[in-house]
């Protein structure tokens, strides 16, 4: 079975600077994969390059077997690729339901939007009870939930999440993780970029470890950090022989 989404040998960065070197990541239907790595390892740049927010110097992007390299971000979203940036991911001056409406931009007809809203509220009942609250007044966890829900309104087949757990306290983290499991069970594949390595791997079947822009390790999530040396490699300390 071909993966639902795949990036192959991607070189990406900003201006003339290449930050990501030859990275390949794939995700199958209904699977969660984690891309983890320390600060500055190129995780966010990799995601941004998929949607054209960072420069893609080389490599290819495939969605449902089709080469979509260089596709405009709005077309990618309408095809079924959802993206949740790390920050500025909601409209703070709009209410929860207005934010969700914005996520349904590509859906045709009011009935479809309404049906989508119903589905989303079933998955995120916490948002329904506060649907008229301004997004800017939400807590960090609620805001992150809204950002994910907004992306889900576009009915993506694959969801790209940039550090959804950053700066959240333990309770909202476990809520977000349980939502990701539900999204996966509903059939959407997820690529989650995270620095909270163990948390991200706990919901993922596979993981990729980026270190200084290259993929240093990949494998089953449960065994990725089983060996002590892999932890040192994650922090770039392996060659020092501690």
């Amino acid at each position, binding site marked *: 079975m071909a993966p639902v989404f795949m990036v192959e040998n991607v070189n990406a960065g900003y201006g003339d600077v290449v930050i990501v070197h030859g990275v390949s990541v794939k995700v199958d239907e209904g699977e969660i994969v984690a891309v983890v790595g*320390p*600060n500055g390892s190129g995780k966010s740049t990799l995601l941004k390059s998929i949607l054209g927010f960072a420069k893609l110097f080389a490599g290819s992007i495939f969605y449902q077997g089709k080469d979509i390299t260089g596709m405009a971000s709005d077309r990618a979203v309408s095809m079924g690729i959802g993206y949740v940036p790390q920050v500025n991911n909601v409209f703070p001056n709009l209410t929860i339901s207005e934010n969700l409406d914005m996520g349904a931009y590509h859906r045709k007809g009011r009935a479809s939007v309404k049906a989508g809203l119903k589905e989303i509220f079933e998955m995120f009942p916490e948002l329904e009870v506060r649907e008229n609250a301004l997004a800017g007044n939400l807590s960090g966890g609620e805001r992150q939930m809204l950002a994910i829900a907004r992306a889900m309104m576009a009915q993506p087949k694959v969801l790209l999440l940039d550090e959804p757990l950053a*700066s959240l306290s333990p309770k909202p983290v476990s809520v977000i993780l349980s939502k990701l499991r539900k999204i996966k069970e509903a059939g959407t594949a997820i690529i989650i970029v995270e*620095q909270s390595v163990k948390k991200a791997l706990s919901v993922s079947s596979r993981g990729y470890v980026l270190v200084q822009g290259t993929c240093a390790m990949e494998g089953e999530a449960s065994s990725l950090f089983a060996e002590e040396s892999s932890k040192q490699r994650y*922090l770039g300390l392996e060659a020092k022989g*501690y």
Partner: protein
Amino acid sequence: MEEALLKIREVSKHFGGLYAVNEVDLDIEEGGIWGLVGPNGSGKTTLFNTILGLYKPDHGAIYFNGKCISNLAPHDIYGQGVVNAFQLPRLFNQMSVLDNMLVAARGHQGDKCLYSLFWRKSWQAQEEGLIEEALDILKLVDLGKCTFSLAGELSGGQRKLLEVGRGLMAKPRLLLLDEPAAGINPALGKSIFQKLKDFSCNGTTFFIVEHRLEILFEFANWVYVMNRGRMVAQGEPHDVVNSPAFYEAYLGEE
């Protein structure tokens, strides 16, 4: 036991309900390179800013050279010899690289009214000496060729180097560096650390936040590890690398 150069006792700093620094204790003895590491948001920069007087601690005390500096203004702390180089360089873009260096020197005689009016020879001699020192430091940080360029014309990496150079120019007793190797190629990053190590032999003490652990751990004498505002591990690099708390800080909990 020798009195620590910098002594931090039970220092906390919170912003609303968030404890960015939570009951931190720390000792830095004179000389050598001391590291401070931890994941994003662990409180490293807040701790630096608290040492520098940019934030007042909500609790606890900071002693430098035996004297409490917790309530001193930043410029007074600078005057004591605690100097920093910011993570994002804050240069005078319209001034030359050399002038940026000269501004950073402490104790300019020409700053004082009487000196500037009546002891011209004295402050001129001091300035000439400072220029010599600045040129030496610029060579050290590989900016010799840019001495007369405007700071605003430097590349990102060069700006970083100038920020480090300015820190050295103040002849600090304790120099706090926030990510000196970030945005610089690995070979140059390593050579900067080697030079800092050489400087530390002359009595300057360095306290460095750095995400490039492989470089920091090669040169640091002692490393402190922060996670969620607390100091969770400390020791020689070899011991820190084998500490579970160090990995828990970076990999998180399940």
